């Protein structure tokens, strides 16, 4: 049996966990600043840490792409724009333990030879913004940021930057445009940010949880981190359970744990109900059903079953939920958040929304199912960035697993489900 491994969440039950008193003295940063930057990059490579923002790219390798001795400023930008539907790990992490992030920023910046870093945090989470601002201020006051940190001669400035409501800014190049003061629209790659990122200079963009994991790797060693998880998906991660589950919440566990194990810990699907479908890593990852309860939640195993580990955002829906309704709402989200830069995504999500609205009302035909999968086929792989691809995941996967449920809507001329039954207060216990 897999057990939980609290690292980033370990101090969250302390009332002062968000302050230095409740966190500690940045011992890992102090240690790191006494090391060669390349030795830190090597340690993070050896640890096997892969990006925790969804894509799973090896973090140390990303850092290694930054050219050295190029005479240009380097930048670290933390992607704290957590907005993927279902994803709710970075927000509580920054609320309860912002110093793990700030300490990670210092180590990461030093490793990639950056003297300026930014935390780009979504604007709609005021108290989280406050906590991160306060942690940064505390770190400055202690001399952990600013000039000559720990007497090492290393200087680092860190700015907390609030976004203004745009899911697309979680896409790394759109985030850079936004941070430069433009509309947040993705850039063509290559050049990749490692070569030409912020202000056309070498830039590393890492997710909050990735950066916050770095101090523990420096403190405990690459082997310690690599000793958790699976062969290719190493370490721990925060798994976020939400929806029709008895005890929703944040469960920090080694990668490779299964939903069955997590649900056991969380008291199962809410009383009197059973699992119908779920997302392994947010709305952009194809849905799974009860046949996937034992799939190890690591990058490879989830991929082999046709979905993606994503952000480990496990949204649980029981048998009272209409899958067509869920897919419609996700589709409306993608249409709302499409930045409009490329045609397949802008037009495709718009038309998907129209057809799905008709389907959900039971006013569609079987041909509409062909239409939505055709539209999705024309978005997938043809869009400028991953937002468009993500929009097709719920479409393709729901038609694959629940075709009959779509058909049922036409047969009876409406939705066969009682909306009240799926609410928190309508559980009918």
């Amino acid at each position, binding site marked *: 049996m897999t057990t*939980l*491994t*609290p690292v980033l969440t*370990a101090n*969250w*039950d302390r009332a002062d*966990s*968000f302050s230095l008193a*409740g966190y500690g003295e940045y*011992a890992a940063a102090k240690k790191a600043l006494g090391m060669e930057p390349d030795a830190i990059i090597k340690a993070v490579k050896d640890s096997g840490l892969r990006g925790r923002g969804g894509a799973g790219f090896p973090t140390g390798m990303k850092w290694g792409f930054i050219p050295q001795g190029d005479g240009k400023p380097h930048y670290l930008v933390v992607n704290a724009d957590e907005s993927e*539907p*279902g*994803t*709710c790990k970075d*927000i509580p992490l920054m*609320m309860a333990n912002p110093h793990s992030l700030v300490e990670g920023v210092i180590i990461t910046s030093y490793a990639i030879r950056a003297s*300026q870093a930014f935390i780009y945090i979504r*604007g*709609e*989470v*005021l*108290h989280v*913004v*406050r906590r991160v*601002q306060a942690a940064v201020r505390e770190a400055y006051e202690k001399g952990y940021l600013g000039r000559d940190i720990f007497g090492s001669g290393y200087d680092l400035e860190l700015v907390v*930057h*609030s*976004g*203004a*409501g*745009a899911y697309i800014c979680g896409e790394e190049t759109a985030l850079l445009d*936004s941070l*430069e*003061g433009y*509309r947040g629209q993705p850039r063509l790659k290559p050049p990749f940010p490692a070569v030409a990122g912020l*202000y056309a200079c070498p830039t590393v963009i890492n997710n909050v949880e990735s950066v916050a994991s770095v101090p523990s790797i420096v403190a*405990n*060693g690459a082997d*310690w981190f690599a*000793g*958790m998880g699976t062969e290719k998906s190493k370490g*721990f991660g925060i798994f976020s359970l*939400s*929806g029709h589950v008895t005890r*929703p*919440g*944040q469960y920090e566990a080694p990668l490779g744990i299964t939903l069955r194990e997590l649900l056991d*810990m969380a008291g199962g699907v809410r009383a009197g109900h059973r699992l119908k479908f779920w997302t392994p890593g947010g709305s952009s990852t194809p849905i799974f059903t009860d046949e996937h309860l034992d799939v190890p939640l690591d990058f490879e195993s989830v991929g082999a079953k046709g979905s993606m580990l994503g952000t480990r*955002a496990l*949204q649980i*829906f029981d048998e009272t*939920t209409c899958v067509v*309704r869920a*897919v419609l709402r*996700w589709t409306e989200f993608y249409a*709302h958040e499409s930045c409009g830069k490329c045609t397949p995504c802008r037009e495709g999500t718009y038309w998907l929304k129209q057809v799905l609205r008709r389907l959900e009302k039971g006013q569609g035909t079987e041909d509409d199912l062909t239409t939505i999968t055709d539209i999705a086929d024309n978005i997938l792989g043809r869009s400028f960035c991953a937002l468009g691809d993500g929009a097709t995941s719920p479409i393709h996967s729901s038609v694959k697993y629940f075709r009959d449920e779509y058909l049922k809507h036409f047969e009876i001329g409406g939705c066969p489900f009682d*909306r*009240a039954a799926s*609410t*928190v207060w309508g559980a009918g216990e």
Partner: protein
Amino acid sequence: MTSYSPEVRERLERDAKEIIGRYPRSRSALLPLLHLVQSEEGYVSDAGQEFCAEMLGLSKAEVVGVSTFYTMYKRRPAGEYHVGVCINALCAIMGGDQIWDELTEHTGIGNGETTADGKVSLERLECNAACDFAPVMMVNWEFFDNQDPESAKRLVDDLRAGKEVTPTRGPGRLCSFKEASRVLAGLPDGLAGEGPAAAGPSLEGLKIAKANGWTAPKGASE
């Protein structure tokens, strides 16, 4: 649209210069400056956009092009309390749709509208990263977790009556929309230390780990 009075202008300029000074290139300060002008009037006004353009040496068209891209910048005055209801799939299904329906009927206003007394505006929100607290509402971007139709209506009634309202994970006092915008501009209000570090679902995993004696393996630092 009239421009700012000399006193307001002087104060905003001081704040703006401080913010601009944090960035290697001044244009990066545009989003924070838009939050700043929103903190003055409760929305991003014509005068506000003019001010941003002047401070950053941009054309007004460039500023408008940016401000209209982001949903948090309001083009009409928001209420003193800007109330959001999450209607993304998970919250909608868990009850957010019913909350929205009952709340709009109760207040008589719709998406993006403000009550006649200027107290409350409503917005349909996309996911606000608190899914384990569904159904979620936000007021001036503070968390109001685990809502139901009755609690939602009571919340809005209390806001309109001027009663004290406390976020579930936030400071002891709910600040106004303008005050919130100022924090987002990068000018802290000193309230970070208030409220719980973590609450409810955020602690479920840790509680279970402690009850079972589960920990991460011992590392070199221990």
